[in-house]
């Protein structure tokens, strides 16, 4: 992918669908991811937004950051709102009413809106087969309300409602696997992405939106405020999440798994954990537990993927610094 890095930006539109001038924290990985996701799309898109960081930073009466038709109603319902928009357009078009051709519907929400409170509405919309894309911008906690744990918060992370203390090492549950839950609905397209791999992210969002029927994209979005990490390392953290196997990049197209990056070996998870304050309390034992779990989960995805050659064996504990982290 690196060899295209100089050329590819020239193919990208200058137009911003998510404009500058919003009120995100400095170094916000989610705002970056949203900008990239919608830069990948044309202006024939209607956005249904869940309550959360992106909704709050990008809207305040009478202003908006969006150059697209945009609707926010509640926290847990953007998938259902998107269902209604899609159905409305379908019916109006069929009945000969004047609506723009080829209008796409994209629902977006954070990890809380997606894997906790809005899970039922997402499942319903995916199951009903609406032609829409759901994008989860996952920053691994309820950041908008002040860094409370969600079911997407990783094991061992300290948040304000899963604090580390004498009796606790922080979050004691493993991150809910939303992409796999989405894939279990047998929808035509599921993908994971992160802003540290921008062209991959844009290509996947584009593909998701162009796919007829429901599509789901899960985008890891680094939150330096909530992760207690340096604001100038968000893309580095994003890439480390991939290179350590913590957040594998893959696609599931019509049930066929495909890894997006061929990693000869994984870097140790410690490289990813050590630059984030939310993990600073973790003992070596706990880090090893995370290492083991990451390898196990990564192996599962690898086994499902049909394009990974046998030489790409997962080895977490060695060959650390060799994988590229630009």
């Amino acid at each position, binding site marked *: 992918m690196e060899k295209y890095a100089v050329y590819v930006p020239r193919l990208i539109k200058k137009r911003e669908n998510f404009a500058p001038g919003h009120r995100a924290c400095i170094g916000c990985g989610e705002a970056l991811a949203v900008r990239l996701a919608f830069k990948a799309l044309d*202006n*024939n*898109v*209607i956005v*249904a*937004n869940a309550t959360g960081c992106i*909704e*709050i930073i990008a*809207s*305040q*009466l*009478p*202003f*908006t950051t*969006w*150059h*697209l*038709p*945009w*609707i*926010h*109603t*509640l926290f*847990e*319902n953007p*998938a*259902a*709102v*998107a*269902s*209604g*928009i*899609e*159905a*409305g*357009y*379908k*019916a*109006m078009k*069929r*009945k000969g*009413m004047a*609506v*723009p051709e080829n*209008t796409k519907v994209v629902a977006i929400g954070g990890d809380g809106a997606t894997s906790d409170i809005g899970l*039922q*509405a997402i*499942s*319903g*919309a995916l*199951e*009903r087969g609406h032609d829409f894309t759901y994008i989860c911008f996952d920053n691994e906690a309820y950041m908008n309300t002040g860094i409370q744990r969600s079911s997407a918060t990783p094991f061992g992370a300290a948040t304000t409602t899963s604090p580390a203390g004498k009796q606790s090492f922080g979050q004691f549950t493993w991150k809910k696997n939303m992409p796999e839950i989405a894939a279990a609905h047998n929808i035509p397209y599921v993908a994971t992405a992160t802003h540290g791999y921008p062209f991959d992210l844009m290509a996947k969002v584009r593909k998701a939106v162009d796919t007829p029927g429901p599509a789901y994209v899960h985008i890891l979005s680094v939150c330096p405020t909530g992760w207690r990490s340096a604001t100038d390392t968000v893309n580095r953290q994003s890439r480390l999440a991939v290179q350590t196997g913590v957040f594998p990049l893959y696609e599931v197209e019509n049930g066929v798994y495909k890894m997006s990056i061929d990693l000869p070996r994984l870097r140790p998870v410690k490289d990813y954990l050590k630059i984030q304050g939310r993990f600073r309390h973790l003992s070596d034992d706990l880090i090893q537990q995370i290492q083991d779990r990451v390898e196990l989960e990564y192996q599962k995805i690898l086994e499902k993927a049909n394009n990974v050659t046998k030489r790409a064996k997962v080895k977490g504990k060695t060959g650390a610094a060799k994988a590229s982290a630009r």
Partner: protein
Amino acid sequence: MATRVGIEVSIAIADAVKLANPDVVAAYPITPQTHIVEHLAELVANGELDAEYIPVESEHSAMSACLGSAAAGARTFTATASQGLALMNEVVYVAAPMRLPIIMAVANRALSAPLSIWCDHSDMMSVRDTGWIQIIAENGQQCVDNIICAFRIGEDKRVLLPVMVHLDGFNLTHVIEPIEFPEQSEVDKFLPPYKFPLPLNPDNPVAMGDFAPPVIFTETKWAQEKNIQASKKVVSEVWDKYNKAFGRQYYPVEKHHSDGAKVVLMTMGAVGETASVAIDEMVADGQDVGQIRLRLWRPFPLEELREAVKDAEVLIVLDRAISYGGPCGPVASEVKAAFYDQPKRPKIVSFVGGLGGRDITVAGFRDIVKQGTEIARTGSKNEYEIYGVRE
């Protein structure tokens, strides 16, 4: 020419919705609303209604899908009851300030616990402050007429508000009545094609549902309140036009022998017809009684109510819901507020009855009027009476 047929009221409502030609129906089944949405699904399945039917996974998503479809500019209908209305409550609040004219039939049913599938008005009272226009029907014909009117009211450019049409669960939803249906061509003339002024449209992007900081929140709420207050005029105007087109007139407060009557009984919903029989009997007996029925719950018809009972000495209000720990029945409470600062006001007596499907018979209504008159004369130890309760 209009045709008159014997038909179950739920089926009739679905047929009335079909006459309004909605683009989207999103609904989740709940007793006693089911026959309405089943028949709509059937109409769509048979190609008799050209609409998208979204079989959502909950009422919360039903109303959310309605928000999306109405915001896209599609004519939108849903129906629910009781727990369903409670589950969608959060979403119900959003529709009015966003000016989305969704039309919803509510088959009034008691709220749990204990579970009851039968009628009272606790669900209707729970959405009193959501900013929706709330119309109450008493019989099947009124349901059909008011469903058609609701679309015209809600979609009027001066209104652009969601409208609920309330009908009592089972007492109306599951009974067969003779109902007159207007012709499609007549409804098309009465109800112009829907054109939402600022839909979600890539050709003209709008942002809907921004958050409001304290500096502007009050103004948005003021605008919403002005809007629903002003809608009252349009509601009456649409009813007048409906009368011109179809020959049936509706009023925010319906009167029955109430002009000049000393004792007036006030009801909402299907029990009104039973009460009318009792009132007729009592008038025939030479008693000075009358009845008013509230047709419009929100916006509340203050002036019409005051005018309707201007000669009354006693106003007995029957609520089919309890405001737990409150001063009296929820409707009675508002009626008292409506008269508090009036120079001449009737003595207002609050009864609660008909909870969870308990019938009030003709004899029961005669008894309520008798007891109410006595309470007005002598006073009562209670702020309100629960009629027929076994203490």
